[in-house]
């Protein structure tokens, strides 16, 4: 497990420059006057990078979740987690839930779904950072990972925005940090509650990260081979 995590962290570090390129404005349509300097990335390469990015995010989130689970959740609580009633925040989002459903979704919808997911998770992760700092004995690795995930998600959002612009020719705006107080509460919750809530957050994020990864992969499959892909 440790080796696996080390591998993934190495991957993450290696992809850091690629993330920078993803985050940079890669579309040069606005600057019509300039002939030099602006060489935009191709759609396939961009999609590949986005997919790889999503994969990494998912892996790191999975590791964080398991770490958190070992650290903070006793076994009985693990049993109760599913019944705790903490629903995922993205429950309300309409998402395809099966391969057959995904087959019926268009590329546009897939991309938009991904974007919705990404945008909806940026803020909760920031919140997660703050709450985890309050923990006693929180391992640095866990904190670093969650921090890393939170940062990379922003980069992923930028990449998806560019991708949408390229593939769908739609202009979109990146999300601005809303001042939603959904996760801000003045009252300090109980430790156990906080732990449970954080754990739910992490596991839900893990699921959605996997969703993002899958959607993007399917999208890529559709780009290369339209008729055999779901």
């Amino acid at each position: 497990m440790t080796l696996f995590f080390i591998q993934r962290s190495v991957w993450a570090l290696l992809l850091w420059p690629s993330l920078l390129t993803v985050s940079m404005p890669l579309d040069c349509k606005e600057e019509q006057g300039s002939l030099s300097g602006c060489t935009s990335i191709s759609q396939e390469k961009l999609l590949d990078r986005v997919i790889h990015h999503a994969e990494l995010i998912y892996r790191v989130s999975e590791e964080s979740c398991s770490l958190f689970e070992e650290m903070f959740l006793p076994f009985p609580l693990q049993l109760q987690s599913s019944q705790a009633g903490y629903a995922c925040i993205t429950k309300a989002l309409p998402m395809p839930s099966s391969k057959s459903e995904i087959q019926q979704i268009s590329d546009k919808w897939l991309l938009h779904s991904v974007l919705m997911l990404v945008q909806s998770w940026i803020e909760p992760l920031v919140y997660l950072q703050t709450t985890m700092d309050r923990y006693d004995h929180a391992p640095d690795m866990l904190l670093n990972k969650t921090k890393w995930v939170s940062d990379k998600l922003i980069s992923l959002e930028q990449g998806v925005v560019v991708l949408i612009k390229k593939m769908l020719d739609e202009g979109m705006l990146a999300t601005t940090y809303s001042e939603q107080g959904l996760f801000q509460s003045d009252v300090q919750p109980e430790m156990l509650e906080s732990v449970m809530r954080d754990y739910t957050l992490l596991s839900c994020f893990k699921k959605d990260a996997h969703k993002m990864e899958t959607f993007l992969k399917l999208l890529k499959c559709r780009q290369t081979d339209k008729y055999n892909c779901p």
Partner: protein
Amino acid sequence: MMKKFREVILLLLLLSFVPHAEGTRYSLPGKPALTRCRSPEKETFTCWWEPGSDGGLPTTYALYYRKENSETVYECPDYHTAGKNSCFFNKNDTSIWVNYNITVVASNALGSTFSDPVDIDVVYIGEGDVEGEVVLLLIIQPDVKPNPPEKVAVTVMEDKGWPFLRVSWEPPHKADTRSGWITLIYELRVKLEGENEWEMHLAGQQKMFNIFSLRSGGRYLVQVRCKPDHGFWSEWSSASHIKVPDYFHRERSVWILITVFFAFIFLIVSWCIHINSHSLKHCILPPVPGPKIRGFDKQLLKNGKSEDIFSALVVSDFPPTSSSNYEDLLVEYLEVYIPEEQELILEESKDLHDGCLKPKGSTFDSDSGRGSCDSHTLLMDKCGEAKDDGRQTDQDGSQTGSEAQRQQAAWEQEALTYAHEDMISPDMSSGRVKTWPSVFSPLPQYSLSPLSQPSSLETAKQHCLSDSLFPPSSLSSYLTQPGQSTKEALRSSCSDFCSSNKQPLLLHPQPDARHQLQARSDVSISSISHKEAPAGLQLPTVRSTEYVEVHTVNEEDMVLLHPVPVGHSHGKGCLQTHQGEDYSKVNGVDKNNVLLLQREVMEEQVDMCPCENKDANGATESYCTSSAQKSIPCIHTALPVQEEKAVNGYVDTATMFPLPIH
């Protein structure tokens, strides 16, 4: 009363047994439990449950599930596909990223028993941890356990003589990895047949892997398994057998070469040591020196006879007695008896060509007849010079060859002038005779003293030149002082002879030497004139000197001499070239150990010159005997002493003196 109690107790007992006896009484079925759910490809999944006690009655099981965010309860669509106590959800019924709330219900005739509900997410379904009845709820960990990879193929490939295994496989056919729906990573393991430990290799997402570092000729087993990125490992595929062919280990060949090389070197070194074993032994283990007493015999010592040992130690020749020949110890030297006057001659005759004779003035004799035109001392002086010149010319080599020949010819001509029978230059004659073999053909080769020709030629030339250069005053001095040293007389006479004799030699002059001769003749005229005045002093020098050769030594100890034959015989006055004159007879040896020679004239031409052979110094005996030839009124007597000495010069001393001659 007691009986009633017993009956009640019995009844009670019976009643108590009744429930036990009613083991077969039916009851509700036990609570089933969902054990695990599996999804091989994230599109379908199967759940298995464990039934509880059945309650004695036939029990049926049903599975109901409810998706999150929905209150609709569905029943398991398929109970049979996956076996007993299982429920199979097909694609249409599978939703991912959605929590399923599954409940198993066991029911029999009496009633139903519900299991605890389990939330599962298909993506994450895994094996449930069932810990007996302690666990109230089953948390089914997410587990997608795919099927093992299929079509595992192992082949042996070659890489520059080093074989390796190439393992290739395919994902399970249900898993949709192509679309990216599910991402699988693979792992394989290898082991030799008969061993227990597997060698694991993580292959990642690739479907091919190379295994290196194989044992030659070994049989290997290969297995592959896969795992989704968020799931559990599948089961190992069935083992594939492969045999690696035998190959020659290149590393071993290198080691073999190294071994052979070192063995070779070792052999060479050992051979060298063996060759030099003896010297090495001496080097390492120097031999202990044994006793080295002369005459000491180890064997005697071993024998133990001390008397013999010590007697052996006595060396016979110690102290050294006089038996040894002292003479043997001394360096041998030649005993040569040389009268003081003759020393020079001896040395000269012997080592004329070796260098200048040292004793220049030591044995000078005032006798005029000594030597030839020149005295010994002068001759020696000149000799040194001439020798040097001669040597130089010798060293010059062929450059002066022609010159040497010319000079040789000139010398030969001059030699002819020295026809004076009495005036025989000892030094030159002996040498000359030898040195002019080419010109004077009848000249027999001397075997007495081999002298280098050119050197003697040179000396003769010098001699002659020196003589010719002498001013006539010398002659006058000679004339006026007859008692003067023979040297001068000889010199002058020699010069006269030189010059005078040159003229008759004009007949046979070498074209090159003509002018020389003429020059000399011019000079000689005056001298000759001088000479003619003192009639009384008919110097034997007027006569041409002749070089006499020692012909033989007859049995009477007489040295037979032959005059050097001269091709011409004419001249003024007493200039005669006598041919055929020979001093062939040794008259005797006087008390002074002087060999007296007899001159025999063989020629017809006899000069009637009333020449007296008078020695200024002393009485001379002159014999003019003619055996078979005409008598010669003109007696040319050789100067007895000197002449003889001169003759001695011509003659090998070995023959001259019987004494030293052994």
